[in-house]
Protein backbone atom coordinates (compact mmCIF):
# COMPACT_ATOMS: atom_id res chain seq x y z
CA UNK A 1 0.00 0.00 0.00
CA UNK A 2 2.80 2.34 0.99
CA UNK A 3 4.61 1.57 -2.25
CA UNK A 4 1.52 2.28 -4.36
CA UNK A 5 1.02 5.63 -2.59
CA UNK A 6 4.64 6.49 -3.19
CA UNK A 7 4.28 5.49 -6.85
CA UNK A 8 1.17 7.66 -7.17
CA UNK A 9 2.90 10.61 -5.53
CA UNK A 10 5.86 10.15 -7.87
CA UNK A 11 3.57 10.01 -10.92
CA UNK A 12 1.78 13.20 -9.86
CA UNK A 13 5.10 14.94 -9.16
CA UNK A 14 6.44 13.83 -12.54
CA UNK A 15 3.37 15.16 -14.33
CA UNK A 16 3.64 18.49 -12.52
CA UNK A 17 7.33 18.66 -13.33
CA UNK A 18 6.77 17.88 -17.01
CA UNK A 19 4.26 20.70 -17.23
CA UNK A 20 7.09 23.24 -17.16
CA UNK A 21 5.75 26.45 -18.62
CA UNK A 22 2.87 24.80 -20.42
CA UNK A 23 -0.42 26.62 -20.21
CA UNK A 24 -2.74 26.05 -17.28
CA UNK A 25 -5.73 23.80 -17.79
CA UNK A 26 -8.64 25.36 -19.62
CA UNK A 27 -12.26 24.20 -19.48
CA UNK A 28 -12.78 20.59 -20.52
CA UNK A 29 -15.11 19.70 -23.35
CA UNK A 30 -18.40 18.78 -21.69
CA UNK A 31 -17.85 21.15 -18.77
CA UNK A 32 -19.39 24.57 -18.22
CA UNK A 33 -17.60 27.23 -20.24
CA UNK A 34 -16.40 30.09 -18.02
CA UNK A 35 -18.46 33.24 -18.47
CA UNK A 36 -16.72 36.45 -19.51
CA UNK A 37 -17.57 40.01 -20.38
CA UNK A 38 -15.76 42.15 -22.92
CA UNK A 39 -16.48 45.26 -24.98
CA UNK A 40 -16.75 44.94 -28.75
CA UNK A 41 -14.65 47.20 -30.98
CA UNK A 42 -17.78 49.21 -31.70
CA UNK A 43 -18.37 49.81 -27.99
CA UNK A 44 -21.09 47.28 -27.17
CA UNK A 45 -21.03 45.13 -24.04
CA UNK A 46 -20.65 41.41 -24.71
CA UNK A 47 -21.38 38.70 -22.17
CA UNK A 48 -20.95 35.03 -23.09
CA UNK A 49 -23.77 33.93 -20.75
CA UNK A 50 -26.16 36.42 -22.33
CA UNK A 51 -25.05 35.53 -25.88
CA UNK A 52 -25.64 31.78 -25.48
CA UNK A 53 -29.15 32.41 -24.16
CA UNK A 54 -30.74 33.11 -27.51
CA UNK A 55 -28.51 31.01 -29.75
CA UNK A 56 -27.92 27.38 -30.69
CA UNK A 57 -24.24 27.98 -29.99
CA UNK A 58 -21.59 30.67 -29.71
CA UNK A 59 -18.29 30.17 -31.52
CA UNK A 60 -15.48 31.94 -29.67
CA UNK A 61 -12.45 32.38 -31.94
CA UNK A 62 -9.06 33.57 -30.66
CA UNK A 63 -7.59 35.23 -33.72
CA UNK A 64 -4.80 37.58 -34.75
CA UNK A 65 -3.97 40.18 -37.36
CA UNK A 66 -0.35 39.17 -38.10
CA UNK A 67 -0.34 35.39 -37.63
CA UNK A 68 -0.09 33.58 -40.99
CA UNK A 69 -2.04 30.60 -39.66
CA UNK A 70 -4.88 32.81 -38.41
CA UNK A 71 -4.82 34.87 -41.60
CA UNK A 72 -5.03 31.69 -43.68
CA UNK A 73 -8.50 31.24 -42.22
CA UNK A 74 -9.83 34.81 -42.65
CA UNK A 75 -12.12 33.95 -45.56
CA UNK A 76 -13.27 30.72 -43.95
CA UNK A 77 -14.10 32.52 -40.67
CA UNK A 78 -15.95 35.26 -42.54
CA UNK A 79 -17.98 32.81 -44.63
CA UNK A 80 -18.81 30.43 -41.80
CA UNK A 81 -19.91 33.28 -39.53
CA UNK A 82 -22.38 34.43 -42.19
CA UNK A 83 -23.61 30.94 -43.13
CA UNK A 84 -24.04 29.67 -39.59
CA UNK A 85 -25.33 33.03 -38.35
CA UNK A 86 -28.43 32.38 -40.44
CA UNK A 87 -28.90 29.14 -38.51
CA UNK A 88 -28.70 30.67 -35.05
CA UNK A 89 -25.00 30.26 -34.34
CA UNK A 90 -23.14 33.38 -33.24
CA UNK A 91 -19.44 33.79 -34.11
CA UNK A 92 -17.28 36.20 -32.09
CA UNK A 93 -13.59 37.02 -32.45
CA UNK A 94 -11.22 37.78 -29.60
CA UNK A 95 -7.80 39.32 -30.07
CA UNK A 96 -5.67 38.76 -26.96
CA UNK A 97 -2.33 39.76 -28.47
CA UNK A 98 -0.79 42.67 -26.57
CA UNK A 99 1.11 43.55 -29.75
CA UNK A 100 -2.04 44.12 -31.85
CA UNK A 101 -3.96 47.27 -30.80
CA UNK A 102 -7.70 47.80 -31.28
CA UNK A 103 -7.37 50.12 -34.29
CA UNK A 104 -5.22 47.51 -36.08
CA UNK A 105 -7.75 44.77 -35.26
CA UNK A 106 -10.60 46.95 -36.59
CA UNK A 107 -8.71 47.73 -39.81
CA UNK A 108 -7.90 44.04 -40.30
CA UNK A 109 -11.59 43.16 -39.82
CA UNK A 110 -12.68 45.75 -42.39
CA UNK A 111 -10.05 44.54 -44.85
CA UNK A 112 -11.30 40.96 -44.61
CA UNK A 113 -15.03 41.68 -44.44
CA UNK A 114 -15.60 40.31 -40.94
CA UNK A 115 -19.19 40.90 -39.86
CA UNK A 116 -18.95 39.10 -36.51
CA UNK A 117 -18.30 41.05 -33.28
CA UNK A 118 -14.63 41.51 -32.45
CA UNK A 119 -13.17 42.26 -29.06
CA UNK A 120 -9.82 43.09 -27.59
CA UNK A 121 -8.98 41.07 -24.48
CA UNK A 122 -7.14 43.47 -22.17
CA UNK A 123 -4.41 41.74 -20.15
CA UNK A 124 -5.36 38.48 -21.97
CA UNK A 125 -7.74 37.62 -19.13
CA UNK A 126 -10.15 35.65 -21.31
CA UNK A 127 -7.29 33.82 -23.04
CA UNK A 128 -6.04 32.87 -19.56
CA UNK A 129 -9.54 31.83 -18.46
CA UNK A 130 -9.76 29.45 -21.41
CA UNK A 131 -6.04 28.59 -21.47
CA UNK A 132 -6.07 29.59 -25.14
CA UNK A 133 -2.50 29.18 -26.35
CA UNK A 134 -2.48 30.21 -29.96
CA UNK A 135 -4.31 31.61 -32.94
CA UNK A 136 -6.54 30.54 -34.45
CA UNK A 137 -8.06 28.55 -31.58
CA UNK A 138 -11.77 27.85 -31.39
CA UNK A 139 -14.19 27.15 -28.52
CA UNK A 140 -17.85 26.30 -29.21
CA UNK A 141 -20.31 26.83 -26.38
CA UNK A 142 -23.85 25.48 -26.65
CA UNK A 143 -27.07 27.14 -25.48
CA UNK A 144 -26.66 25.54 -22.06
CA UNK A 145 -23.27 27.18 -21.63
CA UNK A 146 -21.41 23.89 -22.03
CA UNK A 147 -18.17 23.68 -24.03
CA UNK A 148 -18.88 21.30 -26.91
CA UNK A 149 -15.85 21.73 -29.18
CA UNK A 150 -12.28 22.98 -28.81
CA UNK A 151 -9.59 23.15 -31.44
CA UNK A 152 -9.02 24.04 -35.04
CA UNK A 153 -11.22 25.15 -37.93
CA UNK A 154 -9.92 22.35 -40.14
CA UNK A 155 -6.65 20.53 -40.83
CA UNK A 156 -5.64 22.29 -44.07
CA UNK A 157 -4.49 25.87 -43.57
CA UNK A 158 -2.93 26.00 -47.01
CA UNK A 159 -5.78 25.00 -49.26
CA UNK A 160 -9.45 25.42 -48.29
CA UNK A 161 -10.56 23.49 -51.37
CA UNK A 162 -8.66 20.39 -50.19
CA UNK A 163 -9.85 20.19 -46.60
CA UNK A 164 -10.25 16.58 -45.52
CA UNK A 165 -11.35 17.17 -41.94
CA UNK A 166 -13.69 20.20 -41.57
CA UNK A 167 -13.76 19.82 -37.81
CA UNK A 168 -15.50 23.07 -36.80
CA UNK A 169 -18.12 22.67 -39.51
CA UNK A 170 -18.77 19.08 -38.43
CA UNK A 171 -19.14 20.18 -34.81
CA UNK A 172 -21.62 22.93 -35.70
CA UNK A 173 -23.62 20.65 -37.97
CA UNK A 174 -23.83 18.11 -35.14
CA UNK A 175 -25.09 20.77 -32.73
CA UNK A 176 -27.68 21.94 -35.24
CA UNK A 177 -28.83 18.35 -35.69
CA UNK A 178 -28.99 17.84 -31.93
CA UNK A 179 -26.29 15.17 -32.09
CA UNK A 180 -23.12 14.71 -30.02
CA UNK A 181 -19.95 16.17 -31.52
CA UNK A 182 -17.96 13.14 -32.65
CA UNK A 183 -14.53 14.82 -32.80
CA UNK A 184 -14.74 17.37 -30.01
CA UNK A 185 -11.03 18.14 -29.53
CA UNK A 186 -8.57 18.81 -32.32
CA UNK A 187 -5.16 20.44 -32.72
CA UNK A 188 -3.19 22.40 -35.27
CA UNK A 189 -0.09 24.56 -35.31
CA UNK A 190 -0.61 28.25 -34.63
CA UNK A 191 0.99 31.43 -33.33
CA UNK A 192 1.42 31.80 -29.58
CA UNK A 193 -0.79 34.47 -28.08
CA UNK A 194 1.45 37.36 -27.09
CA UNK A 195 0.51 37.78 -23.46
CA UNK A 196 1.11 40.73 -21.15
Amino acid at each position, binding site marked *: MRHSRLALAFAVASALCLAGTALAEGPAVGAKAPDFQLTTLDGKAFSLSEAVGGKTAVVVMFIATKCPYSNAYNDRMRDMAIAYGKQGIQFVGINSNKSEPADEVAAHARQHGFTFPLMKDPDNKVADLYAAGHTPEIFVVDRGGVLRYHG*RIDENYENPSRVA*SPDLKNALDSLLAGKPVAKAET*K*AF*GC*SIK*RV
Partner: protein
Amino acid sequence: MLDQAGLTILDFRLKIAVAAFAGAATVAGQTSRLAGELDAKGFASRVAAEKGRVVLVNFWATWCAPCREEFPDLVRLQRAYAGKGLSVLGISTDFAGQLAAVEKFLEENRPPFPNYHKLGAGDDQDFINAVERSWGGELPFSVLFDRQGKKVRVLSGKQSYADLEREVTRLLS
Protein backbone atom coordinates in the same frame (compact mmCIF):
# COMPACT_ATOMS: atom_id res chain seq x y z
CA MET B 1 9.40 11.45 -65.88
CA LEU B 2 9.86 14.27 -63.43
CA ASP B 3 8.69 17.79 -64.15
CA GLN B 4 10.59 20.85 -62.96
CA ALA B 5 8.79 20.91 -59.61
CA GLY B 6 9.49 17.20 -59.11
CA LEU B 7 13.17 17.73 -59.87
CA THR B 8 13.31 20.58 -57.38
CA ILE B 9 11.83 18.44 -54.62
CA LEU B 10 14.10 15.50 -55.48
CA ASP B 11 17.09 17.82 -55.53
CA PHE B 12 16.12 19.20 -52.12
CA ARG B 13 15.68 15.72 -50.63
CA LEU B 14 19.06 14.61 -51.94
CA LYS B 15 20.65 17.69 -50.46
CA ILE B 16 19.12 17.17 -47.04
CA ALA B 17 20.01 13.47 -47.06
CA VAL B 18 23.64 14.49 -47.57
CA ALA B 19 23.32 17.24 -44.99
CA ALA B 20 21.89 14.74 -42.47
CA PHE B 21 25.18 12.82 -42.55
CA ALA B 22 27.16 16.01 -42.23
CA GLY B 23 24.91 17.32 -39.47
CA ALA B 24 25.21 14.16 -37.40
CA ALA B 25 28.98 14.40 -37.52
CA THR B 26 29.24 18.12 -36.84
CA VAL B 27 26.71 18.90 -34.15
CA ALA B 28 29.05 21.43 -32.63
CA GLY B 29 29.74 23.09 -35.98
CA GLN B 30 27.68 25.73 -37.68
CA THR B 31 24.87 24.29 -39.77
CA SER B 32 23.31 26.63 -42.26
CA ARG B 33 21.32 23.95 -44.12
CA LEU B 34 18.43 21.74 -43.12
CA ALA B 35 19.67 18.39 -41.85
CA GLY B 36 16.65 16.47 -43.10
CA GLU B 37 12.94 15.88 -42.74
CA LEU B 38 11.36 14.23 -39.72
CA ASP B 39 8.02 12.64 -39.00
CA ALA B 40 6.96 11.59 -35.49
CA LYS B 41 8.97 8.34 -35.65
CA GLY B 42 12.01 10.14 -36.97
CA PHE B 43 11.70 12.67 -34.18
CA ALA B 44 11.74 9.93 -31.53
CA SER B 45 14.72 8.21 -33.17
CA ARG B 46 16.66 11.47 -33.45
CA VAL B 47 16.16 12.25 -29.77
CA ALA B 48 17.09 8.68 -28.82
CA ALA B 49 20.35 9.05 -30.78
CA GLU B 50 21.42 11.77 -28.33
CA LYS B 51 21.13 9.50 -25.25
CA GLY B 52 23.73 10.47 -22.70
CA ARG B 53 23.26 14.17 -23.43
CA VAL B 54 20.61 16.65 -22.34
CA VAL B 55 18.44 17.41 -25.37
CA LEU B 56 16.41 20.54 -25.99
CA VAL B 57 14.12 20.21 -29.01
CA ASN B 58 12.75 23.52 -30.26
CA PHE B 59 9.83 23.71 -32.69
CA TRP B 60 9.85 26.91 -34.71
CA ALA B 61 8.80 28.53 -37.97
CA THR B 62 10.13 31.44 -40.00
CA TRP B 63 6.71 33.15 -39.98
CA CYS B 64 6.55 32.98 -36.16
CA ALA B 65 7.91 36.25 -34.73
CA PRO B 66 8.56 34.96 -31.17
CA CYS B 67 10.33 31.93 -32.69
CA ARG B 68 12.66 34.21 -34.63
CA GLU B 69 13.27 36.26 -31.48
CA GLU B 70 14.02 33.17 -29.39
CA PHE B 71 16.31 31.48 -31.93
CA PRO B 72 19.49 33.53 -31.21
CA ASP B 73 19.19 32.54 -27.55
CA LEU B 74 19.16 28.87 -28.58
CA VAL B 75 22.30 29.50 -30.62
CA ARG B 76 23.92 31.16 -27.60
CA LEU B 77 22.78 28.36 -25.29
CA GLN B 78 24.22 25.61 -27.48
CA ARG B 79 27.53 27.48 -27.79
CA ALA B 80 27.71 27.86 -24.02
CA TYR B 81 26.70 24.34 -23.02
CA ALA B 82 27.57 21.96 -25.88
CA GLY B 83 30.79 21.00 -24.11
CA LYS B 84 28.88 20.23 -20.93
CA GLY B 85 26.52 17.82 -22.64
CA LEU B 86 23.72 19.86 -24.24
CA SER B 87 22.34 19.05 -27.68
CA VAL B 88 19.83 21.49 -29.13
CA LEU B 89 17.77 20.19 -32.04
CA GLY B 90 15.62 22.55 -34.11
CA ILE B 91 12.51 21.46 -35.99
CA SER B 92 10.96 23.87 -38.46
CA THR B 93 7.22 23.51 -38.94
CA ASP B 94 7.18 25.87 -41.91
CA PHE B 95 4.85 25.21 -44.81
CA ALA B 96 6.30 22.91 -47.48
CA GLY B 97 6.47 25.82 -49.92
CA GLN B 98 8.67 27.89 -47.63
CA LEU B 99 11.81 25.77 -47.47
CA ALA B 100 13.81 28.48 -49.21
CA ALA B 101 12.85 30.90 -46.43
CA VAL B 102 13.88 28.29 -43.85
CA GLU B 103 17.32 27.87 -45.38
CA LYS B 104 17.74 31.65 -45.68
CA PHE B 105 16.91 31.96 -41.98
CA LEU B 106 19.45 29.25 -41.12
CA GLU B 107 22.06 30.92 -43.31
CA GLU B 108 21.51 34.19 -41.44
CA ASN B 109 21.63 32.62 -37.98
CA ARG B 110 24.15 29.79 -38.61
CA PRO B 111 23.01 27.72 -35.61
CA PRO B 112 25.61 25.38 -34.06
CA PHE B 113 22.98 22.63 -33.95
CA PRO B 114 21.08 20.63 -36.58
CA ASN B 115 17.70 21.75 -37.81
CA TYR B 116 15.11 19.53 -39.45
CA HIS B 117 11.89 20.19 -41.30
CA LYS B 118 8.72 18.52 -40.10
CA LEU B 119 7.59 16.18 -42.86
CA GLY B 120 4.67 17.81 -44.62
CA ALA B 121 2.54 14.72 -45.15
CA GLY B 122 -0.24 13.76 -42.77
CA ASP B 123 -2.34 15.55 -40.23
CA ASP B 124 -0.34 17.93 -38.01
CA GLN B 125 -2.46 16.83 -35.07
CA ASP B 126 -0.91 13.35 -35.15
CA PHE B 127 2.60 14.83 -35.08
CA ILE B 128 1.73 17.24 -32.26
CA ASN B 129 0.24 14.48 -30.11
CA ALA B 130 3.18 12.17 -30.78
CA VAL B 131 5.61 14.83 -29.56
CA GLU B 132 3.62 15.86 -26.50
CA ARG B 133 -0.03 15.29 -25.55
CA SER B 134 -0.29 18.55 -23.63
CA TRP B 135 0.94 20.60 -26.60
CA GLY B 136 -1.86 22.56 -28.22
CA GLY B 137 0.19 23.42 -31.33
CA GLU B 138 1.43 26.85 -30.26
CA LEU B 139 4.86 27.99 -31.45
CA PRO B 140 7.55 28.25 -30.34
CA PHE B 141 7.49 25.13 -28.21
CA SER B 142 10.40 23.28 -26.62
CA VAL B 143 10.76 19.86 -25.07
CA LEU B 144 13.60 18.90 -22.74
CA PHE B 145 14.96 15.37 -22.35
CA ASP B 146 17.38 14.29 -19.63
CA ARG B 147 20.55 12.26 -20.23
CA GLN B 148 18.56 9.03 -20.03
CA GLY B 149 16.35 10.20 -22.89
CA LYS B 150 13.34 10.80 -20.65
CA LYS B 151 11.07 13.73 -21.44
CA VAL B 152 11.18 15.93 -18.36
CA ARG B 153 9.98 19.39 -19.30
CA VAL B 154 7.92 21.26 -21.87
CA LEU B 155 8.26 24.99 -22.48
CA SER B 156 5.35 26.72 -24.18
CA GLY B 157 5.95 29.99 -26.00
CA LYS B 158 9.07 32.11 -26.22
CA GLN B 159 11.48 31.71 -23.31
CA SER B 160 14.08 34.15 -22.06
CA TYR B 161 17.75 33.12 -22.18
CA ALA B 162 17.78 33.07 -18.37
CA ASP B 163 14.83 30.67 -18.28
CA LEU B 164 16.36 28.39 -20.89
CA GLU B 165 19.70 28.40 -19.10
CA ARG B 166 18.08 27.60 -15.76
CA GLU B 167 16.15 24.65 -17.21
CA VAL B 168 19.18 23.27 -19.02
CA THR B 169 21.73 23.67 -16.22
CA ARG B 170 19.38 21.91 -13.82
CA LEU B 171 19.52 18.85 -16.07
CA LEU B 172 23.22 19.12 -16.85
CA SER B 173 24.29 19.21 -13.21
